[in-house]
């Protein structure tokens, strides 16, 4: 950006987010928060803020279930454990939750797998639409040594969230999405070629891709994906004395470095 372009933005910042006229009203996107949007659930408002779109009741139920079924209240799960450790350190509830949420930007869980899965599925969907063979595309990915994001679970290991999500969608007649079905075709190919199954990330990303999410929207939507499991872990930590969450003795840490020496 040139100095003159910066100067223009210094003088006038164009926003599409909304506009709060304090003491008068609050515009959220293109609507009056206190009038047009007042009957939305908070979840629907968040979806509108992320996508700029309104979703049907069935779509909202599906997306709500995406959040619900991934919120495990188990202190051992990494983001939850951060919240519990922060609770054990007697920090504030919000600071504890922020620590857990920040970790959700991880490569191994929540945000990154979902965004990468969504990008892969969208890319493959476009090529299949253009007439390419899915099997040929997948074989090319494998030949290049590339990872097919969302697929890598050992064949003997079932992600219990997958069958539950499938049945939830079937009950709502919401299992007809292009990426949703594409995900199972990819899994069938990879089961035969590499004996690997899909992870839940592939299916969640497929659902969101079918509802028109792009990568940034996926990232924003995934930010609170596992959130509901966190407050119980903070409260759990408060039920034991400070420092009482999964305490470690010195000999619980296996040191593999150099022996003690002088500076």
């Amino acid at each position: 950006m040139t100095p003159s372009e910066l100067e223009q933005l210094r003088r006038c910042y164009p926003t599409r987010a909304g506009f709060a006229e304090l003491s008068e009203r609050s515009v959220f996107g293109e609507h009056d928060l206190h009038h047009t949007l007042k009957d939305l659930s908070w979840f629907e408002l968040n979806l509108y803020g992320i996508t700029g779109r309104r979703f049907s009741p069935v779509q909202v139920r599906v997306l709500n279930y995406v959040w619900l079924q991934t919120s495990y209240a188990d202190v051992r799960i990494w983001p939850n454990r951060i919240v519990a450790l922060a609770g054990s350190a007697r920090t504030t509830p919000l600071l504890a939750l922020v620590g857990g949420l920040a970790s959700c930007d991880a490569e191994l869980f929540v945000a990154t797998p979902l965004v990468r899965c969504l990008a892969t599925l969208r890319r493959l969907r476009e090529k299949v639409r253009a007439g390419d063979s899915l099997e040929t595309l997948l074989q090319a990915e494998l030949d290049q040594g590339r990872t097919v994001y969302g697929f890598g679970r050992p064949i003997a290991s079932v992600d219990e969230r997958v069958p539950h999500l499938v049945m939830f969608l079937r009950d709502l007649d919401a299992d007809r999405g292009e990426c949703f079905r594409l995900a199972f075709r990819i899994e069938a190919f990879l089961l035969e070629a590499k004996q690997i199954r899909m992870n839940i990330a592939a299916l969640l990303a497929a659902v969101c891709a079918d509802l028109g999410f792009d990568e940034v929207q996926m990232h924003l939507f995934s930010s609170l994906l596992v959130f509901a499991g966190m407050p119980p872990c903070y409260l759990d930590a408060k039920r034991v004395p400070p420092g009482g969450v999964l305490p470690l003795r010195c000999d619980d840490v296996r040191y593999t470095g150099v022996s003690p020496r002088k500076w």
Partner: protein
Amino acid sequence: MTETLETAIWKETPSPDDPFQASHCYCHGYDVHEDLLPNASWFEVLFLLLAGKRPTPAEASLLERVAIISMNPGTRDLGVRAAMNAGVGRAPAGSVLVAAISAGAGQFGGAREVSLAMRLWSENRGAASFDLSCPAEDERSEWPRLEHVPGFDPHARSASAMVLTSIERLAEGSDGGFLVWLREHREALEAVAGAPVSMTGVLAAAYCELGFSAAIAEYASLILRLPGAAAHALEQRELGWRTFPFHSDVVRPQQPTPPQHDLPDITAAVKEYVGDTK
């Protein structure tokens, strides 16, 4: 923009041809790149930035020694463990340090405890008898109710060797200040608290001696504990999740658990999806 942002700490003068580019930065009046960079140490500049004045050599040295103690609270520290949890999941560096701060900010072993202990040291130094009752509860406070006396370790039976060594080493340059007071009155304070002095208490005395306010010390504590969080998070990222404890045999539900259902059988559905376009 018609408003201005006010600061007495930092001045930037613009380049002649670009008002958005700084040509010189001044920290409390000192040119950062032409004066501080060649002439000052990191801890002198850190002291200057936080406290607003140039430290004496003894103050800079004390801050540096506080930083050595603080730099790595250890693999069992709650903030470092939070950082390792984020690191092993391959979270970005910023997320790792947010997690470290989240748990390292607390009032048990964290930065908040440092500031609370400073208050106790300030109130009790010079007093005829010690009163270590916790600061009055503030019903508006976002912080949890205090469950131990700040600056003391409620789980230990005696002060650890490294705590005692730290008091001795830090007090070496002390001119009868808070560190000497803590060294001389430690046992009496511990008798009143019913617990031994912790490293948090030692650091609190050092910050008092530096003349830092509790608010400044809380920030300094957070900043200075981050190197350990970074190093251990990086290490766990490299070691990978397979070697990271899951505590699978430790966590046990305390409430009755609901009956277990079989997983839905989706075999037919999957066949339908796979054959959908064939």
